[in-house]
């Protein structure tokens, strides 16, 4: 028989089972099946309460704000596309990245099933407030863990913010003013 259980708290749990006949007799307890309940996946380059400045080659600057963390917010000021990286435990073999615009304008999605060089992706989204989800699966494709950031302000600045290069979902190409000669 198969049964499902959910643990609400992290920890190491000793799972065991025994069988009972309807006649009343029972087996001994099985050997303990240790279950480690802990975080298996998270974003490594997008952290709650942080303001990131990823401008041109200066993409390592950030400020942490406890106030923003309490509000559940993240700000990303960037001239780049949305680059997401995750760290995972060794049980994780496939990771789904998902960025959902809160206004339902667009959704960016990517699956990375090659963790040899880590799990990462570049999502071609424009700008706005996004919900970021990262979901981990084991080798059998079974859901292992997931994590979400619910209010990520992705503020893309510079000429890329207009959505050139085929990403213009908010602004049509012909609306872009021509460059001066």
């Amino acid at each position, binding site marked *: 028989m198969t049964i*499902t259980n959910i643990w609400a708290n992290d920890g190491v749990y*000793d799972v065991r089972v025994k*069988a009972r006949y309807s006649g009343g007799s029972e087996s001994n307890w099985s050997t303990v099946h240790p279950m480690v309940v802990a975080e298996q996946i998270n974003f490594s380059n997008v952290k709650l309460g942080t303001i990131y400045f990823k401008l041109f080659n200066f993409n390592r600057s950030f400020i942490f704000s406890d106030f923003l963390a309490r509000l559940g917010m993240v700000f990303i000021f960037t001239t780049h596309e949305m680059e997401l990286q995750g760290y995972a435990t060794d049980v994780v073999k496939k990771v789904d990245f998902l960025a959902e615009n809160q206004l339902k304008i667009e959704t960016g999605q990517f699956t990375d099933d090659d963790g040899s060089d880590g799990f990462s992706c570049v999502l071609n989204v424009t700008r706005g407030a996004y919900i970021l989800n990262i979901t981990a699966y084991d080798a059998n494709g079974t859901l*292992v863990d997931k994590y979400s950031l619910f209010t990520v302000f992705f503020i893309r600045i510079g000429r890329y913010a207009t959505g050139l290069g085929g990403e213009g979902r908010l602004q049509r190409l012909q609306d872009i003013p021509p460059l001066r000669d």
Partner: protein
Amino acid sequence: MTGNYWDNYRLLYPAADIDPSTGTWDTAYVVNVSGINIDNHPWVYPSGYIDTIPPQVTVLFPNGGETLYGEITIQWTATDDQTMDLDGSILLEYSADNGVSWNTIAAQLNNTGSYLWNTSLVSDGSLYLIAVTAIDEFYNVGTDRSDAVFIINNFAMETPEITGPFQGGNGIPFSFTAVAYHPGGEQIYYIWDWGMVTSVNGMVRTTPVCQ
């Protein structure tokens, strides 16, 4: 003891009083609202009366040839020509060696005609007998046993094995599988112990594979 002596009556009727005018003993009794005497023993038996007829006992189940496991209901009938219900006098015994030795299952039972017995409390075997004994007020003993041996086989149950994940995040549903088998095809229930936290480390983490 034959029950023909006052000492025997005193044992049987500890609340009895002697009537000094007649020299006889009587037990306290009650007449209910319908006027019916509900005292089963309003008067002791006449002096010199001796009941030598033992209770008639018959084992109904298990009476031989059965293969049993788990909880079974032992069934019997017991009647007596003088003692009305034989309550408190029923003795149940079993023998695992075809009657060579006997062990008590329960004693001083009321004569209900049935008793639930968990056979998993005794070892498996093929030479089991059940004996039911009843004693009347004159200490006549009537007994009966299974007509033939029966088998107790509780199928030593294999310990189930668990298959399932060994690690995962909180709030995620995880599936675990256990398999056990009953040769008799009996329904099997599983009792799961999801464990207590044996160590808590906020962010218990195995080796990350990437940054």
